[in-house]
């Protein structure tokens, strides 16, 4: 089994910049002594992740659970490379694709085809890959001639289908999901389910944060319970969910 992700002693501290600590204060601090100076060294910061350790191999599907603000999304952001860790080590072996918002870069005034290209470009596809996958995406959306019209003319179901089709055309090694991928309208559900299953099967490693136990049980084979930025429980789904439910009841 190939090691895909290794996280060691990872901590993340996020500095908070309040509006009153802006330019004026920086200038003031230089020229006015005394009381304002006091605030100079007391930077407000939040320790969002604290000493996180885990590793994932090929085939692992990790569920991230925890309360609001427990650090689930922050951890995903660190794995995606959006936040850089303050301390510790992170090794990701393979292409990491974050799908937090289903399609980054969608513009309502662009046509469906243009949007497919934009999203694919942002997600790092090569020209050949875009050319190769576009017909498949277009066919799956069942948008037919609508694909040449601006996205703002689409119904919300059509838009959901488009972003779903683009997202599931990816072939990432490591997939990061926040609250799964939504399928869109009911009629479409059956066809989408088949495509989604196929998509999930091609992925090597997946990490999914969600509040829905049902979704996570369907997708994942491992789980991690985060609490105040620390790992509280890690292991198989049953143990972690038992711990999670215990914490919830205590609250």
């Amino acid at each position, binding site marked *: 089994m190939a*090691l895909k992700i290794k996280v060691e002693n990872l901590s993340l501290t*996020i*500095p*908070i*910049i309040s*509006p009153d600590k*802006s*330019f*004026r204060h*920086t200038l003031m601090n230089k020229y006015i002594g005394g009381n304002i100076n006091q605030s100079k060294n007391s930077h407000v910061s939040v320790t969002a992740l604290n000493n996180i350790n885990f590793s994932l191999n090929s085939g692992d599907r990790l569920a991230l659970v925890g309360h609001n603000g427990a650090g689930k999304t922050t951890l995903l952001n660190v794995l*995606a*490379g*959006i*936040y*850089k*860790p*303050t*301390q*510790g*080590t*992170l*090794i*990701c*072996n*393979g*292409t*990491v694709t*974050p799908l*937090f*918002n289903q399609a*980054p*870069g969608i*513009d309502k*005034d*662009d046509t469906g085809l*243009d949007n497919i290209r*934009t999203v694919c*470009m*942002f*997600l790092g596809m090569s*020209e050949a890959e875009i050319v190769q996958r576009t017909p498949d995406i277009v066919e799956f959306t069942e948008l037919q001639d609508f694909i040449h019209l601006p996205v703002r003319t689409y119904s919300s179901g059509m838009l959901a289908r488009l972003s779903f089709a683009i997202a599931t055309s990816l072939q990432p*090694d*490591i997939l990061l999901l926040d609250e799964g991928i939504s399928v869109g309208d009911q009629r479409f559900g059956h066809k989408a389910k088949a495509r989604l299953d196929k998509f999930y099967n091609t992925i090597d490693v997946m990490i999914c944060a969600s509040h829905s136990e049902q979704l996570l049980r369907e997708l994942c084979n491992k789980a991690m319970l985060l609490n105040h930025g620390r790992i509280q429980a890690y292991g198989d789904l049953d143990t972690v969910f038992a711990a999670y439910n215990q914490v919830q009841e205590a609250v």
Partner: protein
Amino acid sequence: MENVSTTIPIESANFTAYESDLALAKADVLNGLRNFRLWHYIALTEIRRRYRRTIIGPFWTTLSIGIFILAMSIVLSALWNTSTKDFLPYFSSGYICWMLMSNLILEGCYTFVGNDHYLKQLSLPYIIYACMTTWRNLMVFAHHLVIFALVLLYCGHSLNFNLLFIVPGLLIIFFTGIWLCLLLGMLCARYRDVQQIITSLLQLAMFVTPIMWKPEQLGPKGLLITKINPLYHYLSIIRLPLLGQMPTIENWLVTISLSCLLVLFTFALFTKKYRTLIYWL
């Protein structure tokens, strides 16, 4: 930041492990500059979006600049007592080049603030956003050159081989622009006031830079202004070739050395703030 350990990615990791700030910043710059395909595409898409459903597209700005140049030339040539045909090429070339520089500075402030939705979702190299802003403005500049071509036709001036000197000039502007956008983007993301300061300073800068007037008109004082105003040198390296003159050695030396200083300073700041930049947005 303290205690950042260095790691080596196993096998052929596409996504590297965390290294020193310097290594991160260096990788960002190299990977970003190399990804021409992406920043060219975003720049083009943005121009397309801005003028969607207009018939003449980016030429709308060209048209408004053209009208401004024409009107001001009539007024100013009367004021300076020269013929419009003499004054038009000088003023139009200056104004078009000035628009490029001032737009680079103004839009540079939005490099990160204006793209925060991408920055918070994707881990693309930060410098890509600076390349994109610079490249977009160069493409818009190319549209404005139409005005200058029309002016030349009207005035009966012809171009000469000195025009070729615009190539190194634009290259300098391009590379300086990328680093300027990076610097301004960082400053404006951290201190939102900077943008306001720059906007008001730029208005002033347009009048103390010889665009509407010639340095000779001010006598010795004018020469002093042009010597100490760095914007004048940047302006000269692209304007003089358009007017069929060769930029002076001084123009090139000043711009190249200033640009090198800018790159060094910006890269140092970028390295230092690489990990914190995202939290400013």
